[in-house]
C-alpha cells in the first residue's frame, strides 16, 4: 500500500514523515523519526517496553498504527527529561533507588510511572503495582522500581510544598 504523509507532535515538536498504513507507531517513531527511546520488545502487546503517552495517556505503541496517531501529541521517554537534557525527578529517583539494571524495560516503566504520578501524586504500593502491571522487567524483580516510584512521588510532593 502507498505510503502516506503523517504529521504528529512528538515531545512538543511537529514531525512529519511518510509511512504505509501497516507501520506501527513504534516503528514510525524509531524508524523515519529517529526517536528511539521507546523500546521494541514483544511487538504484540505483552511487555510494555514500547509504552508512550498519546494525548497524555499511556498506550502500547506496537498496537497502534502511525496513521492513527496523525494529529496527536505523543510523548516518549525523551520527552520526560528537562529541555537541558537533565533527568526528570522520576528519572533521578530511578537512578537513586536502583530502579533499573539493563535498562531495556526502563523507558516503558518511566512512561507508565509518569502517567500514574500525573494522575495521582500520592500513590500507594497497590496503585504503583497496578500502574506498572503491564510492563515486564526481566532484571530488577520490580522491588526497586516500586521504591523508585515511591521516592519520586515523595520528592515531587516535597518540591511542591
Amino acid at each position, binding site marked *: *500500500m502507498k505510503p502516506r504523509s503523517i504529521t504528529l507532535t512528538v515531545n512538543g515538536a511537529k514531525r512529519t514523515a511518510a509511512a*504505509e*498504513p*501497516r507501520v*506501527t507507531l513504534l*516503528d514510525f517513531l524509531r524508524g523515519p523519526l529517529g526517536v528511539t527511546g521507546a523500546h521494541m520488545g514483544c*511487538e*504484540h*502487546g*505483552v511487555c*510494555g517496553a514500547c*509504552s508512550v503517552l498519546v494525548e497524555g*495517556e*499511556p*498506550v*502500547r505503541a*506496537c*498496537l*497502534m*498504527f502511525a*496513521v*492513527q496517531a496523525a494529529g496527536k501529541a505523543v510523548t516518549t521517554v525523551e520527552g520526560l527529561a528537562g529541555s537541558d537534557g537533565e533527568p526528570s525527578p522520576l528519572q533521578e529517583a530511578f537512578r537513586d533507588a536502583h530502579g533499573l539494571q539493563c535498562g531495556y524495560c526502563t523507558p516503558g516503566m518511566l512512561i*507508565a510511572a509518569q*502517567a500514574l504520578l500525573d494522575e495521582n501524586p500520592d500513590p500507594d504500593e497497590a496503585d504503583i503495582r*497496578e*500502574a506498572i*502491571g*503491564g*510492563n515486564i522487567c526481566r532484571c530488577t524483580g520490580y522491588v526497586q522500581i516500586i521504591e523508585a516510584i515511591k521516592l519520586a512521588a515523595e520528592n515531587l510532593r516535597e518540591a511542591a510544598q
Partner: protein
Amino acid sequence: MKPAPFDYFAAASADDAVRLLAEHGDEALILAGGQSLVPMMNMRLARPSVLIDINDCDEMKFMAADGDGFAIGAGTRQKDILKSAETCTAVPLLLKALAFVGHVQTRNRGTLGGSIAHGDPSAEMPLVAVTLDAAISLRTSNGERTIAASEFYSGPMSTERAPDECLMAVSFPLSTGAGTGFHEVSERHGDFAIVSAAAEINLDAGGKCASAAIGIGGAHPHPVKALKAEAILVGEAPSDALIEAAAEAATDGIEAMDDVHATGAYRMRVARVLAARAISDALAEAGL
C-alpha cells in the same frame, strides 16, 4: 512480527463504517481499540487487506440507560467504562470483570465492542455479556438487527456476525441492586483467564433468589450461560448446600479445552470452585 500490507480507511461515522464494510466485504475488518486485532496482525495470524478504523466515530462511544437496559456503544473505551459511576451502578458485574481486563495501557485503547466482537473464549467482556444475556446490535448498510449474547458465539473467536455487519452497541439488562461476583484464575493478573466465573443474583423480600445469572468463561470454546445452575438457585433460599449444587451444575454441557496452560479436567474442576465463589460473593452483596 510486522503486519501484512493492508489498506486503511478512517470511518467518520457509523454509517461510513458500514458503507465501507459493504464495499470491501469479507476482505475488511473493523479496527476498534486494536488490542486484540493488532497483536494477531503483527503475528500474521490475521491478514485483513482492509482496515476500517472506527476510533473517530464519536457516536459509537456512549453509556446510557435505554428502557429497561443500559446501552454501551461499541467504541466505548474500557478505561471510560471503569470511570463511569453511572455504569458502575447500572451494570456492576461489568465493572467487577473489567478489573481483570488487561492493563492501564491496553484499557486506554481497548473497547467494549472490540472485545465482544473478537470473542476470545477467555475474555471477560464476552463472559459478562453472555452471563447477563445482553442484547448485541449489529448494523449493515441495509439495516440493524439485535442478537442475544447467549446466541452470538459459535466457537473460539467466531460469532454470528456477518462480514458486512458492524457491532454498534451492547445493551445490558439493568441490574441496579443486584449482588455480583466475578472470579478468575490466570497466570498473572491482567492476563486472559484460564477459567473465569461470573454471577449476578437478586434476592426477593423473603431472602429467596428472585433471579440468577451465572456464566463460565475460558473452559468451553466460548463463554457459556449456566442455565442449569441458574434454575437450581431461582426460587430457593440460599444455603451452602444450594450453592454447592449450583456450582456443581455450572459446568453442565461444557466441553473443556486442553491447551498449554491447563488440561480440560483442571478447567472443569476450577470452574466449579470459581462458580461457588462468584455465587457466594453475589449472595453476600445482595444482602444475604
